[in-house]
């Protein structure tokens, strides 16, 4: 049975990896092929200052509301280089080949290349040889009746966004600055009318690596959850110091006959740190109910408060003490960052809790809260993944859970298979990241970037 499990595990672990590498290589090859074909289609011979190989294409990986104008870097040694800041291009667009044409905008040097849009065209070096300009919309003059516009008054215009599944026609006007004072341009409108149809894409190919990583992590986590359900004590999670102190803190509150205060961070209920904090709150509430101590929970968001009420109530019921649950103790403090800090500080100094728990995502109020808590003499345990606030908790709290320890905490405390599986799966993900990092750095150092590009966003 165990061999079969390992076989399945290896299959699921390796298949996404191979699929990932295969798809990425395939995508890279396809991108290169398309680029070559596009280059082969260049047949427009134009005067010296005119862009070479103009192309209008539908913008890849979008919702069908943009086009891309591409042209080749001017290779002629005698020509005015397109990088020349004296040259600019004016783009006009229409929904019919014969017009009316409306202005899109002016393209001024320095121009962006296809390489500057890696989400659309990838990281192929050939992309540096093509300029690219994104067309999202145009300016259309408002319809006016005769006599409505006064003399000297500019006609009003409306910005129109491109629509999906519409064929647009684009013309390019080349402007060459011949004098600055007074500003004079040599204009040349190209005869060629470019056309392309906007199309929405169901699949954003630039996110292929994200999807494959998601599948890989999901499969690994699911397998570990399955494993944890079959053998909940077989999965090891290392000791997290702050969590062992949690029971001591609750015990201290019980012995002193004082309350424990749980302070939520400033994020909504759908944010991951808040969800992690909620799991920890459930565990703390259960212990508090078992010890017959008092728990107060402060909130910044009314919806988080509602979820907390449910969580704490459930914990009290699980502990067999539904009568001890007090809804008014799970309170809304304030809806603004610093007024929340002021209100919670007030609770701390007036009610002097024996234990204070700060869990979730905190901002500048972290030091105000934890410093006040420290002054009241409470034992404080904090956990946050807010990188800039961790130092403040480290300096003022007795124990601090750093970053991901916050997520591991709920699994460590509850030993629930789902959470344990999640932590184990993430560890496999970290090993994979370390492997990619080492290989990527070695290959990049050797001058081969193709491998690391597979993992670029």
């Amino acid at each position, binding site marked *: 049975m165990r061999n079969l499990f390992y076989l399945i595990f290896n299959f699921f672990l390796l298949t996404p990896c191979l699929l990932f590498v295969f798809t990425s290589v395939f995508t890279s090859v396809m991108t290169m092929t398309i680029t070559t074909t596009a280059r082969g289609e260049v047949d427009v011979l134009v005067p010296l200052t005119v862009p070479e190989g103009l192309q209008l294409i539908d913008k890849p990986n979008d919702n069908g509301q943009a086009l891309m104008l591409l042209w080749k870097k001017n290779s002629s040694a005698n020509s005015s280089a397109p990088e020349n800041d004296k040259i600019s291009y004016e783009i006009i667009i229409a929904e019919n080949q014969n017009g009316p044409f409306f202005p899109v905008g002016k393209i001024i040097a320095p121009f962006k290349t296809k390489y500057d849009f890696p989400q659309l065209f990838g990281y192929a070096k050939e992309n540096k040889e093509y300029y690219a300009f994104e067309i999202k919309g145009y300016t259309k003059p408002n319809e006016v009746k005769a006599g409505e516009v006064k003399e000297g008054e500019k006609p009003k215009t409306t910005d129109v966004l491109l629509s999906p599944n519409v064929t647009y026609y684009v013309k390019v006007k080349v402007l060459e600055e011949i004098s600055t004072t007074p500003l004079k341009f040599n204009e040349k409108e190209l005869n060629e009318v470019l056309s392309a149809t906007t199309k929405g894409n169901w699949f954003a190919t630039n996110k292929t690596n994200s999807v494959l990583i998601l599948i890989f992590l999901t499969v690994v986590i699911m397998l570990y959850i399955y494993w944890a359900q079959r053998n909940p004590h077989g999965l090891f999670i290392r000791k997290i110091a702050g969590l062992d102190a949690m029971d001591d803190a609750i015990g201290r509150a019980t012995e002193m006959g004082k309350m424990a205060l749980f302070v939520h961070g400033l994020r909504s209920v759908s944010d991951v740190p808040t969800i992690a904090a909620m799991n920890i709150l459930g565990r703390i509430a259960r212990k508090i109910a078992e010890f017959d101590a008092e728990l107060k929970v402060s909130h910044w968001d009314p*919806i988080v408060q509602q979820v907390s009420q449910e969580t704490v109530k459930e914990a009290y019921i699980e502990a067999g003490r539904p009568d001890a649950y007090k809804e008014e103790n799970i309170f809304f*403090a304030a809806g603004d960052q*610093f007024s929340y800090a*002021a209100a919670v500080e007030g609770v701390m100094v007036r009610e002097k809790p024996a234990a204070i728990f700060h869990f979730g995502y905190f901002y500048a109020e972290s030091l105000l809260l934890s410093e006040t808590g420290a002054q009241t003499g409470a034992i404080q345990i904090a956990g946050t993944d807010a990188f*800039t606030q961790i*130092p403040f908790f480290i300096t003022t709290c007795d124990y601090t859970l750093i970053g991901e320890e916050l997520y591991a905490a709920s699994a460590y405390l509850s030993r629930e298979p789902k959470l344990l599986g999640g932590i184990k799966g993430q560890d496999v993900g970290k090993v994979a990241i370390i492997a990619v990092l080492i290989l990527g750095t070695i290959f990049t150092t050797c001058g081969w970037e193709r491998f690391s590009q597979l993992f670029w966003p």
Partner: protein
Amino acid sequence: MSAIDTDSNSNSNSDMNSNSHNKTNEWWIFAVFFSIIIIANAILLGSGSLKWGWSGVGIMMAAAFTIGLYSFLYQDNPLFKMAEHFYVGIATAYLIIVTWYSVILTDIIYALRDLWSQPFSSTIFWQMMAIILPTMIGLLVYTRLVPSISWLSRITFAVIIGFGSGLAIPNAINAYILEQLKPSMMPLWTSAGGIAWGALVIFFGVITTLVYFFFSLEHKGVIGKTAKIGIWFLMISFGASFGYTVMARFSLLIERINFLFRDWIPLING
């Protein structure tokens, strides 16, 4: 037993005495503080440093509340309590107003009114549904007021958490894995042939820190030593972050002092 009762009686008597003493003290603090504020503002108005009007009243109130909140640096006191309760009340009132005008009116009532005024079609119907359904789900939160159907509020929480996680997970992979991997895989040699120290530090820093956050193995032996290097990297970065944030906090303090001694009492010139 009787000794305990006597103790508790004497304790409650002393608590009552202390409470009434505290209340008298609180009134004195209020009286002295407001007298000083009124006299100071009268002098400032009289000398023309402050102008009478809404802006002048705003400055006077902001100054009083600022001092009230800073008084917490000494200890908890009635001035801080007053400022705290005003602050919480005003912030909540502001939140309600913002929600009413920018969410309920704009996104629900006006949006539905505009759709209602247009000729009915399947597109309009679905656009209306896109407003009505989320509103209905939101309103389910109020079922918590009726205990027998309060379970319905869980639907709202499930939808919010589900949507949030669904949106967050793909973005997290992009932001926390791919975006971080890109600048971490740099060449360790410079084009001139030397060692790229910056890239080397990042390379070792990222790997050792990742090892610290590895929960499946005990931090012993090689793993323990690597994790220890990782925690050093973390602490150095926390130190830098601490210093940077403290500097930012000082700028907030300077801004408040600037307000008190430039906008309110004109002691700072320029």
